[in-house]
């Protein structure tokens, strides 16, 4: 398969008020075209920073971030980001918010916006203001906005983390359903193991400070997956162990997932 997203020996250091905080000093990662990769890790481990580097919203301190072999820049339109919060522009209606995503695409924008709102089940709310929407609806608009950009790579930054449990599961199914018509590369950042297991082709586990890739798992089950699939169940136990969950006291020599050895 052709490589789509590549991070090569990427380091990122945040400098603020004279102190520098290294987020990671050597991350390498490749994502194939059309692949769905989930980056899994505890809060504050730098998962989102990886996503922001791919989006061009942050510049790497060292190393290279490229899509399709070409380095990313701030003015890149090869990615679209769906953030953890919907981040809808409150002064634009639902359809105008989706149209923001489509603004750099040629062709009939209004038709595209309508089709996407239909796909995420919000055709009736095209004229509504963002503040009138529930959290789940707002996040569906954000997803439609991301898809409207027709990106090579769709970047999802914990997009369902703030939703209630049931809405989150429905959104995951919606994402898979929508993806049938939009088969682009997806990089999903999440701390939800079940979400990663349900959606991704491959899970990249991040840990330690400064962060590094501690493990990678290919998920050996075709989609759509039953949430009770036994293969996935075993993989879940495995990953949970890595994060120090379900470990017997004598085995629990550390509470830091990053201290575990890489595969």
């Amino acid at each position, binding site marked *: 398969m052709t490589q789509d997203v590549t991070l090569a020996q990427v380091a990122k250091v945040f400098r603020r008020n004279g102190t520098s905080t290294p987020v990671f000093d050597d991350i390498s990662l490749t994502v194939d075209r059309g692949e769905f990769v989930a980056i899994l890790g505890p809060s504050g481990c730098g998962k989102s920073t990886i996503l922001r580097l791919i*989006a061009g*919203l942050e510049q790497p301190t060292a190393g290279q971030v490229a899509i399709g072999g070409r380095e990313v820049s*701030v*003015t890149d*339109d090869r*990615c*679209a*980001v769906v*953030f953890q*919060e919907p*981040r809808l*522009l*409150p*002064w*634009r*209606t639902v359809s105008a918010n989706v149209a*923001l*995503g489509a*603004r*750099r695409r040629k062709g009939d924008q209004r038709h595209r916006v309508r089709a996407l709102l239909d796909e*995420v*089940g919000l055709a*009736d*709310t095209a004229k*509504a*203001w*963002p*503040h*009138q*929407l*529930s959290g*789940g*609806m707002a996040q*569906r608009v954000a997803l439609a*906005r991301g898809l409207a*950009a027709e990106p090579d790579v769709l970047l999802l930054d914990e997009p369902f983390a703030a939703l209630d449990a049931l*809405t989150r599961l*429905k*959104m995951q*199914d*919606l994402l898979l*359903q929508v993806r049938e018509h939009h088969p682009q590369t997806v990089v999903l950042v999440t701390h939800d193991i079940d979400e990663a297991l349900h959606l991704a082709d491959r899970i990249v586990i991040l840990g330690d400070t400064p962060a590094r890739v501690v493990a990678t798992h290919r998920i050996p089950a075709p989609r759509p997956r039953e949430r009770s699939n036994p293969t996935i169940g075993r993989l879940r136990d495995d990953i949970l162990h890595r994060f120090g969950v379900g470990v017997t006291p004598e085995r629990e020599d550390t509470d830091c997932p990053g201290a575990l050895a890489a595969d």
Partner: protein
Amino acid sequence: MATVHHSPPVAKAAVPATRRWRSGVPTPRWLVGLIVPVALLGLWQWLVNREVYTRSQLPAPNDVWLAGRQLWEAELLVEHVTISIERVALGFAWGAGIAILIGLAVGLSPVVDALLSPTIQAIRAIPSLAWVPLLVLWMGIGDQPKITLVAIGVFFPVFTALVGGIQQIDRRLVEVGQAYGLRGPALAWHILLPAAAPALLTGLRIGLAQGWLFLVAAELIGASRGLGFLLTDGQNTGRADIIVLSIVLLALLGKGTDVLLGLLQRRVLRWSDAWQA
């Protein structure tokens, strides 16, 4: 689509034009707003009847009305009012326009901010009347110094409000704009101005009020037309009815133009989810 819940958005009720008070009778808002002016008018007439002041000190409401009619028949009322509106309108356009341009530059560029803000704040501290001799010296006694003085008055509230508004913009929304390819002027137009619009509109309304204030200051000195002139003229000729007439007209015009801006504000901010009592 069966997996996703379908719920139409709850349509938020529009701002009610009428409101039920305790009696249960719907009352238009503007009618409620008239209560105090009518009461004041009553108080005024009562003071006149009690002869608390002499008629030449405090004219009756009817005297003011007659003075207005007299000026109307002499075809002077329209002229005074029109010229004042014209000066405020032009001064407002100039002052607000320049304030928006400089405000955007200061709000968007730390360099411009560091360069201009201290000076602008110092100039702002100058009382309006202090400008008058200088403006007369530079521009004579025509319309130009008056419009300029109004523009100065409008500039500062608009500028301050816009810069404050830009500094309060949610960084995450700017990031959305950037993530979807907006840069420079496009970012300013699609993200920054709409995000700062609530602050800007408040600034425009304060600026307009200040514009009328500065107009009178400008017309008090070296004017032969306009409401400020009418005010001085009334003073010089001992015509309290003319003075009160000018004051009432200024109040009406100030309120009227503010209502127009208020309508614009409602229209522009119709997306807003602000709290309403």
